C-alpha cells in the first residue's frame, strides 16, 4: 500500500465530513484515487485525531450514488426524471432562466439558500451579490444557529468569544502563556458527536485530563453530565432563567470581579427612571451628543459625561458611583430621578432568587448554588455553549445573561477563560456578525429589499441574511414583492434545516426556477429544475480563516465532473456581473487573506499560520491593550466602548436592554391545555457521531452506527405507554406526526423525549410522493415556522410538546 502513494496535506471543511472543519488531514492518493485518510499528527488543531465521518471519506468520495454530472429535469417537478447535461449547457440554462427573472422581477426575487455556514457563506454571497440579490438565506427558522449567539454577544461586548482551549497557541497546552481552566460550564453541548462553532469538541477532554472540572447543563445524561462535578438537568428552554439564577448567587454572595465591573462595563452609566432609558449627554445639554452617556461622580456630587468616542470621562479624576439613585436636571430644567446601570441590572437579577429559578428550571436549588459558586470561584473558568442557546425565541436575553457571567467574573479574554475570537489575521471573506468582508453587495440601496431587514434590528447591524420565516411566507403572499427563483446550496430544507417541511415542499414547487447544488440527490434536490454536482473538500482549493489558524484547503483528487462550490459560483457570478473583478479563484483568495501578508500559494506551502502576539486576532487582554477598537483605544467595539450590561443597542431597537428570562411558547407552563393532550416535552436534534444533520445516511460505515431514526424515552415512561425498546412509535403533536424507533434509556428524564433529526432514507424511491421517505420520520413536521424572538432570532426547536403511541401492525413494517 505504500508504493506510488502520494500524500496530500489539507484541511477539512465540508463537504464530506460535513462539519465545521478545521482538522488537518493527510490524504493518501494512488493513481488519482483516495485510498486512505488520516489525521495530520503535526496539525495543532486535531493533533492526528480524526472523527468517524472523516475516516469514512473513502466510502463517500466514490459512492455509487454520488452526483457526477449536471442534471436537467425532464419530467414534472419531483417526478425524478433527469437528463445529463454538460456544464456549459447547465451554466447557459441557469444564466438564461435566472437572467429572465432578474429582468422581469428584479434580482431580489431570487433567494440564495444555504444550510449551516461551513465553506459556503462566502461563495453563496459571491453569486447572490453578483446577481444583485440581497436575499441570502440561512434556511432555519429564526436563523437559529450560531449567528444569533454571535449577534447577541456582539450586542453586549462588541466581539464574540469562545472557550480558550489554547487553540490560538501553536504549542497548545504546553505554551507557558496558557492556563488550564479550573472549571468549564458545558452548556447544552454533546461532545462525542459534534465539533460545532469551530471548537474541536475533544479539546475539553484534553483539558479534563489536565484537571478541568465540568459543570454540565443538559436535560439529557450526556457524557459530560455523567462525569460532571455538578450536573444541572434543566427543563429545555429555561437556560435564561438558570443564567439569571447564577448571576443572583454570584452577585449577592459578592463572588464577582468588582474591578472589571467598575472599569470595563457600563455599570456606572445612569438610567432615567422616568423613561427607563440610558441618560445621554443630549438629555443634559441641548447641544450634547446622544452618543455620550452619563455617570454620577461621587467626588463632585454631580453628573459627569462619558465621552463614547474618546472612551473616557469628560473630566479627569472621576469617581463614578457603581450603585444608587440620584437626581439630575435635564436641559429643559426638569429634574428627574436616575439610577446606575448596575442598580438596574441587580434589580433584574434579584427578580430571580434561586427558589424561583429552581421552580422554572426544575433544577434543585442547592445544585444551582453549588454550580454558581464553583464557576465563580474557579480562576480561570470558561463557558462553552451549544446550539440550544439559539434554539429558543428569547435567545438574545439569554445570551446577555450568560455573557454577563463571563464578564463579571473577570473571565473575558484571559488565558483559559472565554477568549475573544476574531478571524485569523482579520482575514474576512464576507460580511458576518462583527466583521465586514471582501465579498459585498454592490450598494446599500440593493440591501433595502432584503427580507426582514427593515423589521428586525439584528438584521441591520449583525446578520446580513434574509429572515427565513418571513421569506417562506413571502413565497406564498408575494408581498411586498414576488419570489420567483431559488438557488439551494449545501442545504436540504425538506429533510434537515426546514421546520414544517411540507410547507417548504409547497414553497419550492411554487417557484418558477430552482437550482440545487449538492453531492447526492436528496429530498430537496428532487424538487429542482437543475442539479449541479458539488465537490468534497478533497476535491477543491480553499481558505479557512474562521478564528484560528489561517489554513489552506488543498485539492487532492477529482471525481467525475464535480466542481467545488466556489468554482461553480465563480463562473456564474462572472456571467451575471459585468463588473466582476477577479480573474480566478486564487486571485479572490489572495485578496481575502491579504491581511496575513501571504498569498494563497504561500499559505498553501505553509499549510497553516497563527496570528502573532500583539495582533488584534491573537489573545490575550486585548481590551486593555487597545487591540479591539479601530481607534486602538482600550475598550470594546460597543456604542459606549464598554461591556454593556444595559444594552444601548437593544434600547435603540425598542427591546428590553437587560438580561432576563422569557418562557418559550410551547411548554407545560405556557400551554397548560396543550400539555394535557401532549404530556411529554419533545426535544429534538441531539447529535450523533455518525451524522452531520441530514447527511451520511447513505455511508455504510456510518449508517451501521445508527441505522434508524430514534426517539429516546425513559424506561418508566416507556413502560407506562407499553412501548418496548426498539419498537416503532408515532411521535405526534398538533402539527403532525413522525415515526421513530424507541430507544428506551434512562439518559432522558421521565418527562421528556429526545427525537433525532434530519432523517430520510437514501435507499427509498426518490420520486414523489416518496422523496426518499422523508415525511415518514422527519421530526421537523412537529415544529412550526414563525415563532421567532422579538428581534427575529431564535426558534422553539428544543422544547415542544408531544405524545407517543405504538405504530400498529402494518404501519410498522415499512421501516423495520
Amino acid at each position, binding site marked *: 500500500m505504500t508504493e506510488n502513494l502520494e500524500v496530500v496535506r489539507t484541511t477539512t471543511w465540508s463537504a464530506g465530513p460535513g462539519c465545521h472543519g478545521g482538522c488537518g488531514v493527510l490524504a493518501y492518493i494512488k493513481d488519482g484515487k483516495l485510498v486512505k485518510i488520516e489525521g495530520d*499528527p503535526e496539525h495543532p488543531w486535531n493533533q492526528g485525531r480524526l472523527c*468517524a465521518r472523516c475516516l469514512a471519506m473513502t466510502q463517500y468520495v466514490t459512492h455509487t450514488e454520488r452526483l457526477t454530472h449536471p442534471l436537467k429535469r425532464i419530467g414534472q417537478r419531483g417526478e425524478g426524471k433527469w437528463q445529463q447535461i454538460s456544464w456549459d449547457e447547465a451554466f447557459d440554462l441557469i444564466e438564461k432562466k435566472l437572467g429572465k427573472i432578474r429582468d422581469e422581477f428584479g434580482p431580489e426575487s431570487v433567494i440564495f439558500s444555504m444550510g449551516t455556514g461551513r465553506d459556503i457563506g462566502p461563495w453563496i454571497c459571491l453569486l447572490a451579490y453578483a446577481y444583485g440579490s440581497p436575499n441570502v438565506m440561512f434556511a432555519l427558522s429564526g436563523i437559529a444557529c450560531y449567528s444569533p449567539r454571535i449577534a447577541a454577544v456582539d450586542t453586549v461586548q462588541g466581539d464574540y468569544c469562545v472557550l480558550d482551549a489554547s487553540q490560538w497557541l501553536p504549542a497548545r497546552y504546553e505554551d507557558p502563556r496558557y492556563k488550564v481552566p479550573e472549571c468549564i460550564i458545558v452548556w447544552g453541548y454533546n461532545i*462525542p458527536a459534534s465539533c460545532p462553532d469551530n471548537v474541536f469538541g*475533544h479539546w475539553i477532554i484534553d483539558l479534563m485530563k489536565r484537571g478541568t472540572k465540568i459543570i454540565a447543563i443538559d436535560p439529557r445524561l450526556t457524557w459530560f453530565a455523567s462525569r460532571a462535578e455538578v450536573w444541572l438537568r434543566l427543563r429545555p428552554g429555561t437556560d435564561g432563567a438558570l443564567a439569571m439564577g447564577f448571576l443572583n448567587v454570584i452577585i449577592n454572595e459578592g463572588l464577582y470581579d468588582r474591578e472589571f465591573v467598575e472599569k470595563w462595563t457600563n455599570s456606572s452609566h445612569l438610567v432615567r427612571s422616568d423613561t427607563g432609558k440610558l441618560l445621554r449627554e443630549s438629555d443634559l445639554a441641548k447641544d450634547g451628543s446622544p452618543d455620550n452617556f452619563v455617570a454620577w461622580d461621587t467626588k463632585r456630587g454631580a453628573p459627569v459625561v462619558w465621552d463614547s468616542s474618546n472612551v473616557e470621562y469628560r473630566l479627569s479624576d472621576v469617581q463614578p458611583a457603581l450603585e444608587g439613585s440620584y437626581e439630575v436636571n435635564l436641559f429643559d430644567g426638569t429634574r428627574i430621578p436616575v439610577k446606575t446601570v448596575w442598580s438596574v441590572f441587580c434589580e433584574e437579577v434579584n427578580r430571580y432568587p434561586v427558589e424561583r429559578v429552581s421552580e422554572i428550571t426544575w433544577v434543585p436549588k442547592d445544585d444551582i448554588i453549588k454550580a454558581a459558586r464553583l464557576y465563580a470561584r474557579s480562576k480561570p473558568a470558561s463557558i462553552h455553549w451549544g446550539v440550544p442557546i439559539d434554539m429558543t425565541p428569547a435567545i438574545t436575553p439569554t445570551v446577555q445573561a450568560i455573557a454577563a457571567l463571563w464578564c463579571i467574573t473577570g473571565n473575558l479574554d484571559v488565558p483559559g477563560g472565554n477568549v475573544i475570537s476574531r478571524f485569523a489575521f482579520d482575514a474576512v471573506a464576507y460580511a458576518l456578525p462583527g466583521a465586514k468582508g471582501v465579498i459585498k453587495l454592490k450598494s446599500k440601496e440593493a440591501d433595502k429589499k432584503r427580507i426582514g431587514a427593515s423589521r428586525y434590528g439584528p438584521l441591520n447591524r449583525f446578520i446580513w441574511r434574509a429572515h427565513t420565516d418571513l421569506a417562506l411566507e413571502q413565497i406564498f403572499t408575494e408581498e411586498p414583492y414576488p419570489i420567483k427563483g431559488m438557488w439551494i446550496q449545501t442545504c436540504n430544507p425538506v429533510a434537515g434545516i426546514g421546520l414544517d417541511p411540507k410547507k417548504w415542499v409547497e414553497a419550492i414547487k411554487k417557484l418558477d426556477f430552482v437550482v440545487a447544488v449538492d453531492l447526492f440527490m436528496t429530498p430537496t434536490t428532487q424538487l429542482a429544475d437543475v442539479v449541479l454536482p458539488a465537490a468534497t473538500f478533497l476535491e477543491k482549493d480553499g481558505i479557512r480563516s474562521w478564528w484560528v489558524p489561517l489554513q489552506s484547503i488543498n485539492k487532492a483528487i477529482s471525481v467525475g465532473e464535480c466542481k467545488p462550490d466556489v468554482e461553480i459560483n465563480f463562473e456564474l457570478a462572472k456571467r451575471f456581473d459585468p463588473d466582476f473583478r477577479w480573474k480566478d479563484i486564487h486571485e479572490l483568495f489572495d485578496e481575502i487573506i491579504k491581511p496575513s501578508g501571504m498569498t494563497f500559494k504561500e499559505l498553501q506551502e505553509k499549510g497553516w499560520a497563527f496570528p502573532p502576539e500583539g495582533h488584534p486576532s491573537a489573545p490575550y487582554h486585548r481590551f486593555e491593550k487597545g487591540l479591539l477598537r479601530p481607534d486602538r483605544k482600550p475598550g470594546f467595539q460597543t456604542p459606549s466602548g464598554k461591556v454593556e450590561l444595559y444594552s444601548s443597542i437593544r434600547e435603540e431597537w425598542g427591546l428590553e436592554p437587560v438580561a432576563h428570562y422569557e418562557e418559550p411558547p410551547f411548554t407545560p407552563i405556557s400551554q397548560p391545555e396543550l400539555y394535557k393532550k401532549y404530556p411529554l416535552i419533545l426535544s429534538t436534534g441531539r447529535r450523533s457521531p455518525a451524522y452531520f444533520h441530514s447527511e451520511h445516511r447513505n455511508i455504510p*460505515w456510518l449508517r451501521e*452506527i445508527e441505522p434508524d431514526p430514534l426517539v429516546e424515552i425513559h424506561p418508566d415512561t416507556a413502560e407506562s405507554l407499553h412501548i418496548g425498546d426498539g419498537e416503532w412509535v408515532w411521535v405526534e403533536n398538533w402539527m403532525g406526526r413522525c415515526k421513530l424507533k424507541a430507544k428506551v434509556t*434512562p439518559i432522558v428524564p421521565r418527562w421528556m423525549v429526545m427525537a433525532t433529526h434530519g432523517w430520510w432514507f437514501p435507499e427509498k424511491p426518490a420520486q414523489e410522493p416518496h422523496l426518499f421517505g422523508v415525511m415518514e420520520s422527519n421530526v421537523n413536521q412537529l415544529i412550526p415556522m414563525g415563532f421567532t424572538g422579538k428581534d427575529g432570532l431564535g426558534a422553539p426547536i428544543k422544547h415542544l410538546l408531544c405524545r407517543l403511541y405504538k405504530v400498529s401492525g402494518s404501519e410498522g413494517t415499512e421501516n423495520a
Partner: protein
Amino acid sequence: MPKSSGYGLLIDYEYCTGCYSCQVACAQEYRWPAGMSGIRVIEVVERLPKDREYLVYLPFPTELCILCAPRTKKGLEPSCVKHCMAACIKYGKIEDLAKEMGKKPRMVLWSPRA
C-alpha cells in the same frame, strides 16, 4: 490453548466518549465492509441508587482485531489508537500496560485474538 501475542490495548473508559472513530478507522484500514470491524463501541448506561446513572462507552476488540500488526511492524500506532478522539486507547506490551492500569480506575486491558 493459543498463546497471547504479549501485546494488548489499554482502554481508559472514563474518557471514551463513544465517537466511533476507532471502529471506522479500523474498517478503513482493512477495508472491511459495514458490519465488520476489528473494534466495536459498546454503550452501557448503568442505573445507580438515588435515581442516578453513569454512561460508559467501551471499545471492544473483535475477532477481526490483529492489533494492526502491519502498522506496528512499521513503527506506527494501531489505527484505532492513532485516531481515537479522546486519546484513551493505548497499545503496548501487556505487562507494561498492566502497570499503567494500576494508576487510575475505570480502565480495561484487552488481549485480543491478534
